[in-house]
């Protein structure tokens, strides 16, 4: 086993532990709530992995953690897995071809991703069923959740940047 391979394994194990911890924190009732709203922590974490470790790793993490989120949510099983996969691959590719890896760009990517995910859920789980007072629901539940998740994408951005720098010092220097 080469040193490079060993470092890679360590890096992805650490990433997996962080994302899993984010999932546990996100899913535990009452643990991370602000005025009754819980941020979605798994998606920004996976987006950050996609940004720093590439679209394939991000997509893989997104898909697996999406399955975890599906098992804990009431959406159709597979919804989060598919959406997280697409969003993470998209974020990874955008970082490669369009954006730089600046903190602001990553936060914007997270905001866009969480907005798309929430909008899709809102459309498929609520709007299609034509529930009453959907506008109120969007402004009081969905929108604050998007804002809160965007704010919490900052610590993930910092964490994964440091992690990447620690395990890939040569690449970071370039």
């Amino acid at each position, binding site marked *: 086993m080469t040193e490079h391979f060993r470092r890679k394994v360590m890096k992805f194990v650490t990433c997996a532990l962080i994302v*899993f911890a984010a999932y546990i924190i996100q899913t535990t009732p*009452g*643990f991370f709530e602000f005025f009754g709203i819980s941020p979605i922590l798994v998606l920004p974490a996976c987006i950050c992995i996609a940004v720093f470790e590439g679209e*394939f790793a991000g997509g893989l993490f997104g898909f697996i953690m*999406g399955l*975890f989120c599906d*098992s804990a949510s009431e959406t159709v099983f*597979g919804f989060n897995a598919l959406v997280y*996969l697409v969003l993470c691959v998209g974020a990874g590719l955008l970082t490669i071809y369009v954006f730089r890896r600046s903190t602001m760009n990553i936060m914007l990517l997270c905001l866009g991703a969480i907005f798309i995910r929430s909008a899709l859920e809102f459309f498929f789980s609520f709007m299609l069923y034509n529930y009453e007072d959907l506008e109120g629901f969007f402004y009081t539940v969905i929108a604050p959740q998007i804002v809160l998740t965007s704010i919490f994408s900052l610590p993930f951005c910092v964490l994964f940047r440091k992690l990447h720098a620690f395990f890939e010092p040569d690449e970071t220097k370039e």
Partner: protein
Amino acid sequence: MRTMQKFLKSWYFKVLCALAVFGIALMIRAAASGSADVFLSQAVSVISQPFLNFSSSVTNSVNDFLDRFVNAEENYLRVRELEKELLEANKKIIDYDKTLRENEQLRELLKLKETNPDYEFEPAAVIGRDSTNRFYSFTVDVGSLNGVEEADPVITPDGVLVGIVWEVGPTYSHVRTILDISVQVGGYDSSTRDSGIVTGDITLSSEGVCKLKYLPKESGIASGNIIVTSGIGGVFPKDLPIGTVRSIEVDSSGLSLVAEIVPFADVENITEVMVIKSFNGQSTGFSDSDTAKAEEDGENE
């Protein structure tokens, strides 16, 4: 830098596409069957459940701890509210006990009414006792506003003689018991029909015993005989049970017998009584033959 075309041709892209197709298939299956893929969801649950359980228990402990400080004001108000509720509940319990007691009294009253239809009763509760009085006199919660008058007989709810109303206030009455030396009740032995006067005795009252005086020397009275009221004088109704004979001896003058009577009523501890406001043959006020209020009042002074 890789080109997009290179990515689209790479095995990464193929794997990601396969995952996407797999995801779509999962969704279609879940939407069609109305439930999640059992194997996958169970596998995910098996992995995450222990961590979630641990996390939940930690969260609950932390939340419980923080709740003491964060919601201190709310908890304080809640405690106040609960204290008020407790007070109301206690009041209700007191009302309930009172109602229960009244119910029991009324049942006894009904029995007494059936056997003595001429009696007019007033149920009463003992609300005070003079701790310095050696004859166990007490105060009840009924008075002239309830129609109670001086010299009305006082009995237990089961019809046993306790004493007599001595003083009457608007809402209370003082009762002297049959252990009191100032109370004299005409009584007779229900077996031998020998009559005498039941009254208290300074030395015997501490034992809760009274005396039946002026019995004929040739009386056949014996221990265990039952003494009841004679009704002479019209202060007490006839045949109210008083007590049983404990012992008999010749009086100091040697002319008559004196019997020690153990009252049926637990005079020292009684809490509920009935005042007989009227009965057939009742006289008004104190009669010389039944009581010696005036004389004893003079002696007490």
